[in-house]
């Protein structure tokens, strides 16, 4: 390991600009002649629009234009799309996909739905005029509640009878039924995965410009995947031809999934900028983020686990109702199906699994991928039912998991639900976590708590996730409309410095540092001579972006592949210059050496020679600039064990996490300091979901938790320090052996926390968020 290579805790090179106020985020950018956008939004969850009168608003000070859905449609700008078709049960080939107009056409379907765009000289003028637009609404009954939407008296979309998007299944129903028939014990739980709101601290924003001279659009946007934004906005929304649209995602202030999606605001502003002939800027107010950013989770499920007398899992049967919100967001359909139910084997050998999922529409914000996306829902359900089974059968929960683990010699392991796991050692993670959490000392700690009138609980979570998203052919076979490869472009400059462009996009993960470490390791270039460029469709090659813990596993692999090509070409140049056979050239540490001699040429010299090719091999092109596209062979499968220990004051319900231990197997780790931060942040979000956060709509479809006064984000005094460790079984399926680390914390932590709290409170189910009141109630019931 070199000081700046793979495995080194290199300090993040991007931090200097963020710490000095020199970050460059979308809202920090202003251009000459810029106007400001405000959206007229529906105050109703469900209503017909009988008319829009903008006469008075149009006459207000500073108003440049007021535009509606009719004008958008007249210009041929198409509706927003969902890029993943889910085939249903019984030969149903396509899910029900209601038209999602970027600006409403005659009807609104959730509070915050986009009705009209107001463009004005200042933000205050735009906001003021938006309030003056008179919309004649005819209210309709709202469909609210995940478990109540199917066959509700009110139908939201004609295209979706009974408010059903799809009725989907996976696994072998009859084999699973047979497993239950033979079971010595069956554990059944009904479980809710609470709806959460992503709350990246940077609100979404865009700045759209049209250049009349060139006929080009430039869109700055808070995106995790600017190339996908460009593709969708040109191919599906018809806003601008792909080659005339430049999408730039500059520094992005967190995303957690919510900035994957192609939203109405950027589509409408990009269309409108040409129409009004001025740049248009829109930045979400936090209340708009709450109302309109795609929400996460929101499942209501029943899970049954069949066990034999020894606690071996025989079968798992699951039914889930998944709330998709009012419309299908960009990847919404895949999240509660292929991102969810394919993980229900967990880390266990359960031979028979069956899950069916009904995706339902409600008059709420669209629901889509949020950190973990389906995998937290699977892990929460599975780890809750396993923990419950352990309690019912009076088996130690760690022991029950150990009895059912897929063993290290069983890989590759084919689960009954699509995935083939490549490698893992789940017992090693469990052993290490138990050690780090001092599980052996728990009984004494519990006794001590009880002597002080407190309750104490310990909860496990043994998770697995499918990351490195994803093999394109597999995605296509499952209904996905995209390829999920990644690209890299390595350009040596004549002076020996390197510019690396890739299609992923950093929004807090430290790509500029981690990718530079990979290049430094592979090509022997000092890290300060490496520039990582992302986030601009005019600069780098087309790429699919950052989500699903894919950047290092897929993007990093593309970088390695391109680096290999650099070395291959460099060998030809070095062989010529060193007057040796190409086969005799070895490359290590940035030097091309003739094997067994001291004849050496540094890669910087090779780069210079490539650009000043006076003495140069015949038939070799000048330049040292290579590109690679990498399509993964399989998903990667990070796994691990988290253990949470809580102490509860039964008189108040106040719950303190007194120890939180995480042991994760991410395979090869590029930068342990960055990975540790990713784990911390994920746990923070998972603890938030488990104890504090919950998006609540009232029966009329008003979002009750629409501000930071109502929606409880974890704050510094709510969380503990974390006790984090790793094990490692490098993935055999990608050149770095990496697995991805971005989502693990958010996937593993909710069941660990709830298992600990329920352990402390006598075992009865407590739904997330386990607020102080709920915990107090549970303590009262237990006493």
């Amino acid at each position, binding site marked *: 390991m070199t000081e700046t290579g793979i495995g080194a805790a290199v300090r993040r090179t991007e931090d200097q600009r963020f710490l000095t*106020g020199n970050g460059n985020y979308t809202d920090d950018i202003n251009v000459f002649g810029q106007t400001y956008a405000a959206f007229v939004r529906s105050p109703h969850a469900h209503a017909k629009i009988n008319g829009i009168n903008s006469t008075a608003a149009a006459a207000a000070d500073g108003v440049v234009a007021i535009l509606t859905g009719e004008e958008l449609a007249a210009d041929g700008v198409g509706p927003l799309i969902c890029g993943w078709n889910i085939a249903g049960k019984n030969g149903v080939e396509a899910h029900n996909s209601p038209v999602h107009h970027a600006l409403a056409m005659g009807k609104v379907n959730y509070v915050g739905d986009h009705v009209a765009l107001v463009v004005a000289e200042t933000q205050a003028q735009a906001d003021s005029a938006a309030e003056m637009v008179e919309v004649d609404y005819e209210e309709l009954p709202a469909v609210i509640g995940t478990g109540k939407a199917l066959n509700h008296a009110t139908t939201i979309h004609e295209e979706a009878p009974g408010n059903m998007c799809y009725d989907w299944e996976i696994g072998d129903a009859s084999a699973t039924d047979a497993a239950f028939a033979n079971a010595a014990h069956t554990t059944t739980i009904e479980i809710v995965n609470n709806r959460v709101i992503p709350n990246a*601290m940077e609100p979404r924003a865009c700045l759209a410009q049209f250049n009349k001279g060139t006929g080009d659009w430039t869109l700055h946007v808070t995106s995790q995947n600017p190339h996908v934004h460009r593709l969708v906005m040109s191919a599906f929304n018809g806003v601008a031809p792909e080659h005339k649209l430049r999408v730039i995602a500059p520094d992005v202030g967190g995303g957690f999934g919510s900035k994957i999606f192609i939203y109405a605001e950027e589509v409408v502003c990009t269309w409108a900028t040409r129409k009004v002939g001025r740049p248009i800027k829109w930045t979400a107010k936090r209340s708009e983020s709450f109302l309109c950013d795609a929400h996460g989770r929101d499942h209501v499920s029943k899970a049954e686990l069949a066990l034999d007398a020894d606690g071996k899992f025989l079968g798992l049967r699951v039914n889930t109702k998944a709330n998709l919100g009012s419309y299908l967001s960009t990847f919404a359909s895949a999240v509660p199906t292929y991102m969810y139910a394919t993980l229900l084997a967990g880390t266990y050998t359960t031979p028979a699994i069956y899950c069916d999922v009904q995706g339902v529409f409600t008059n709420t914000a669209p629901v889509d991928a949020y950190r973990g996306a389906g995998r937290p829902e699977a892990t929460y359900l599975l780890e809750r039912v396993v923990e419950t089974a352990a309690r019912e059968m009076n088996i130690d929960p760690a022991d029950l998991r150990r009895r059912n683990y897929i063993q290290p010699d069983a890989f590759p392991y084919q689960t009954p639900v699509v995935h083939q796991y490549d490698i893992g050692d789940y017992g090693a993670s469990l052993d290490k976590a138990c050690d780090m959490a001092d599980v052996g000392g728990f009984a004494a700690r519990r006794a001590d708590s009880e002597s002080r009138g407190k309750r104490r609980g310990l909860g496990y979570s043994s998770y697995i996730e499918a990351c490195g998203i994803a093999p394109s052919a597999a995605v296509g076979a499952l209904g996905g409309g995209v390829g999920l490869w990644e690209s890299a472009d390595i350009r040596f400059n004549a002076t020996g410095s390197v510019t690396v462009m890739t299609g992923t996009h950093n929004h807090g993960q430290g790509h500029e540092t981690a990718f530079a470490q990979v290049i430094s390791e592979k090509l022997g270039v000092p890290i300060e001579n490496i520039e990582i460029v992302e986030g601009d469709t005019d600069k780098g090659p087309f790429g699919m972006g950052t989500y699903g813990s894919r950047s290092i596993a897929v993007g990093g692999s593309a970088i390695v592949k391109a680096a290999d090509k650099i070395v291959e070409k460099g060998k030809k140049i070095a062989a010529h210059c060193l007057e040796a056979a190409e086969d005799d050239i070895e490359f290590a540490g940035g030097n091309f050496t003739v094997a067994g001699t001291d004849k050496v040429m540094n890669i910087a010299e090779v780069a210079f020679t490539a650009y000043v090719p006076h003495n140069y091999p015949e038939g070799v092109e000048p330049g040292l600039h290579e590109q690679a596209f990498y399509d993964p062979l399989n998903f990667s499968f990070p796994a691990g064990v988290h253990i949470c220990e809580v102490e509860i004051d039964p008189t108040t319900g106040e719950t303190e996490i007194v120890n939180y231990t995480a042991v994760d197997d991410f395979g090869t780790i590029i930068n342990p300091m960055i990975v540790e931060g990713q784990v911390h942040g994920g746990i*923070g979000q998972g603890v938030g979901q488990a104890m504090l956060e919950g998006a609540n709509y009232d029966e009329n479809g008003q979002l009750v938790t629409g501000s930071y006064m109502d929606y409880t984000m974890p704050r510094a005094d709510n969380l503990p320090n974390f006790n984090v460790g790793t094990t490692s079984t490098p993935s055999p399926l990608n050149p770095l052996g990496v697995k991805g680390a971005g989502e693990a914390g958010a996937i593993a932590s909710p069941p660990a926390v709830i298992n600990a709290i329920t352990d402390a409170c006598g075992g009865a189910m407590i739904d997330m968020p386990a607020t102080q009141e709920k915990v107090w109630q549970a303590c009262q019931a237990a006493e």
Partner: protein
Amino acid sequence: MAKYHITAEINGDETEYLCEPEQTLLDVLRDELNYTGTKEGCGSGDCGACTVMMNGRHVCSCLVLGAEANGAKIETVEGMADGDNLHPLQEKFIEHAALQCGICTPGILVASKALLERNPDPTETEVRYWLAGNLCRCTGYDKIIRAVMDAASEMRGN
């Protein structure tokens, strides 16, 4: 309505600006004076991303009117480093990787500086409570707390 003509000291520089009555100090800093290091996270004083020092107190600049800053001494994240020499808090945030996306970081740095000016030797609990007004969605706070504690220790000369 006429704009207000305001004179304030910002990061040590006497600064004049014109502002609308409804413009917040945050709007003025970002949109009129190009101090874009200070961020808006909520606009309602709940997230702390817009934290600046005003006359020695840390305030949410989204809750202060630009016109109120007349004669005031304002310090933003841009004024923390001394030229190329980073403030110890900035140094420790790099050393501990106490930031990820960076959007909440300027506010957290300013709030942390305010803490250490009042209390050079805070306990972990004191740091956590002091920073409870600053939301961070990326880090889970762990590394932030460690970085602030470490910076405090260094600034005390340990």
